[in-house]
């Protein structure tokens, strides 16, 4: 075995290891990488680490953690060893995700118009109509091209057998794509030699693809539609990403107070007067978009925006009300949704899910709290969940009460042994860390995926939570042509 990997324990009996087989040999597509890393000394690694840290610091790549008195900025931890996905596996992921996104879009289009799927009782109507993300104001409003979910970032994991499963569909305003792009830049600086040995598919065209998608949904016929990014502002944890994407696309980064609606048209306030806006890539949640329609106390939105949108004078990406389809309860119906609209079998499977709203399943959940992962249906970012095996008796009792009080709001899934990937806990030690994968699907005229995604890695030993707000980091993700 090669030096750095000598003391690495893949524990392949309990987890799927991305790099090593059960026998302890590198998988085919990792062979060259393992050999190359084997030639590095720990000093080399720490020099490379410096290069990467300086790169991230200079780029100002930070995120903010909630829950303390003041948001604390941290550099997003980056692991030096890239995650590699061979092209045949990627082809499957790509087909599976596109199938899923097309079906979910059809679902949104249906529930915001004739609601056939509810009438056919494939999905219980009360689950959809009772969801806090279902916006009844938008029934009958057709967005440009009939597309609701222009940017999505589904979370994909691998179980013990290495099967790719979809864990979550993030259909509202998924973040992290800037890390995907910056990770690639960072790794190119740190290990240019690695890239010689592999045909890594480029991802740098993501901002152009995003801009093209946004221009495609412009409701106006002007040749150069005016696209803006709408951010909640500098205190938002993903502000860096908003400003990064705006810069990369060459469009204006706006806050709510930069926009004004007049006669149902949206304008930016500029030093030269008002400029018409055609498309808003909004990174503000539905509830904050327009104080006249949603939360009246929101200062992030634009008064009158929703009327302008309903009139078809401006396009929003993503559309309003998409959260109803990434609700963790609706998630369990996605395989049925795919079969219903496309008449196909799902290419990517779901993780097995129990709904607390079903009395039989609720009983099962309450009896097995110590082995299950319980999630609140509408939370994101790793908030409001219970990881059974890591919880205390007291936490489980508290959670049980919450579940009984509001069954509609909870689902449970088995604790998945997420696949592991060798990563540096610190510069000196290589350990197996749990990872997931978030590819980004763009949907304008047709759905496309930039080959790759954000691989999030739980850098705390043994932790299963990969969210950046909970101590997770990320890796560069390569899709390679063999």
């Amino acid at each position, binding site marked *: 075995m090669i030096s750095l990997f000598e003391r690495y324990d893949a524990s392949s009996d309990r987890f799927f290891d991305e790099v090593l087989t059960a026998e302890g040999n590198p998988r085919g597509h990792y062979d060259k990488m393992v050999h190359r890393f084997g030639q590095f000394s720990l000093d080399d690694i720490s020099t490379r680490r410096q290069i990467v840290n300086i790169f991230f610091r200079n780029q*100002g790549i930070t995120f903010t953690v909630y829950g303390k008195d003041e948001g604390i900025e941290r550099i997003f931890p980056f692991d030096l060893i890239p995650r590699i996905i061979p092209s045949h596996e990627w082809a499957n992921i790509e087909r599976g995700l596109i199938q899923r996104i097309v079906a979910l879009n059809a679902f949104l289009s249906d529930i915001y118009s004739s609601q056939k799927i509810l009438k056919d009782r494939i999905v219980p109507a009360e689950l959809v109509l009772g969801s806090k993300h279902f916006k009844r104001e938008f029934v009958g409003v057709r967005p440009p091209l009939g597309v609701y979910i222009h940017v999505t*970032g589904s979370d994909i994991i691998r179980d013990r057998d290495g099967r790719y499963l979809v864990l979550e569909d993030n259909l509202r305003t998924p973040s992290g794509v800037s890390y995907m792009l910056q990770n690639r830049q960072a790794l190119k600086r740190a290990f240019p030699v690695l890239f010689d040995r592999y045909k890594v598919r480029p991802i740098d065209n993501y901002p152009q693809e995003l801009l093209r998608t946004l221009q495609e949904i412009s409701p106006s016929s002007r040749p150069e539609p005016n696209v803006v990014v709408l951010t909640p502002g500098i205190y938002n944890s993903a502000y860096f990403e908003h400003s990064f994407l705006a810069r990369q696309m060459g469009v204006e*980064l706006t806050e709510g107070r930069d926009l004004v609606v*007049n006669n149902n048209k949206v304008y930016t306030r500029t*030093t030269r007067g008002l400029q018409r806006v055609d498309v808003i890539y909004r990174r503000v949640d539905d509830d904050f978009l327009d104080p*006249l329609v949603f939360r009246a106390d929101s*200062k992030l939105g634009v008064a009158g925006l929703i009327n302008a949108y309903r009139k078809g004078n401006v396009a929003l990406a993503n559309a309003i009300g998409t959260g109803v389809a990434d609700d963790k309860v609706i998630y369990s119906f996605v395989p049925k949704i795919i079969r219903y609209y496309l008449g196909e079998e799902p290419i990517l499977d779901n993780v097995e899910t129990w709904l607390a709203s079903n009395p039989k399943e609720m009983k099962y959940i309450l009896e097995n709290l110590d082995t299950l992962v319980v999630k609140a249906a509408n939370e994101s970012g790793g908030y409001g969940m219970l990881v059974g095996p890591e919880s205390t008796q007291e936490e489980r009792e508290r959670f049980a009460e919450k579940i009984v009080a509001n069954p509609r709001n909870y689902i449970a899934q088995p604790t998945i042994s997420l696949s592991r990937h060798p990563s540096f806990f610190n510069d000196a030690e290589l350990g197996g860390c749990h990872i997931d994968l978030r590819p980004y699907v763009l949907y304008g005229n047709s759905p496309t995926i930039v080959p790759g995604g954000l691989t999030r890695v739980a850098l705390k030993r043994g932790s299963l939570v990969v969210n950046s707000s909970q101590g997770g980091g990320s890796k560069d993700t390569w899709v390679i042509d063999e």
Partner: protein
Amino acid sequence: MLSRVAESLFWMSRYVERAENTARFLEVNFNLLLDLNDITAIDHPNYWSPLIRVTGDPLNFTDRYPEYNAHTVTDYLVFDRQNSNSIISSIGMARENARSIIDSISSEMWEQINNLYHFLQSVSPQQVHNDPFSFYREIKNASHLFQGITDNIFSRTEGWEFIQIGKYLERADNTARLIDVKYHMLMPKVGQEREHDPVHDSFDTIQWMAVLKSCSALEAFRKVYLSKIDPDNILWFLVLDRTFPRSIAFSICAAQEALWRISGSSRHRYANNADRLIGKMEAELIYTTVEDMYRKGLHRFLEEIEQGLNRIGEQVHLLYFAYHTPKIEPNDVSEALPFTGIAGGRANWSQSQQQQQ
């Protein structure tokens, strides 16, 4: 460009300049007091209260400090966060503004402001009391470095013009106040009857030299007047000279040119009220003499300049930042959102309510 971005550039620049000038105010005062050759006078309230009068709000000061002396005034003007014009508040606001438009400025500019901010956090009041000159030099140098970086790498776009306007309006205002400090300091000695005729004695000349030094103007002045340190000449130099970059006339001229480049105005035709007001002020300065200043009363003359600069600032705000919302249809929105971008907005509670998905 977005009004909000233009406004933040303007205020970022303005606050850095303000911090530098506050450092200069304090420095000139120490300089003057050292020239008194009377160590017991250093804490005399008469030498310190004028600083508060021209830079801030005396009521705000007396509410929280027992008396005017070197320590309290330094604390108030350097470290007090309740004083919105203190150096620490100014740099904090400059940083907030820079942060809100971090994608519109270069990372070097941001780093410089951020470094200065962190430097201020690390300095204790005691350090400043022990060695005021090093501290003020540090602030001035940091401001010069920021302006130099900006000068070297910021594209000459509309944003650049707003940076210039902010800097020069603030500088003109501060130079006027700096001269005013000197004027106030003489008040206790000269008495009311000599208000329109500052004393011309030799001690006074030494003090005027200190004022020149604090504007970094002594050497430039000597090149024009050799060693003739005459208060009239100094006044002329700091107010009316058109070649020295910290003089009032130079600053107004520079701000005017930046305003012209934005609006396309020229000497013969103004496009808006800001251009009109600054053109009028510039024209008046061209034809003003030191005699005129005395005749009006130096204090009143300077005060009028400060008021004029305020009005120009208001017009810039109305024209470019608080862009007027067009008449809103009654069925469109029930009320327009107030524009909240003044001088770098505060943290907005609901921004942090969103979770990352």
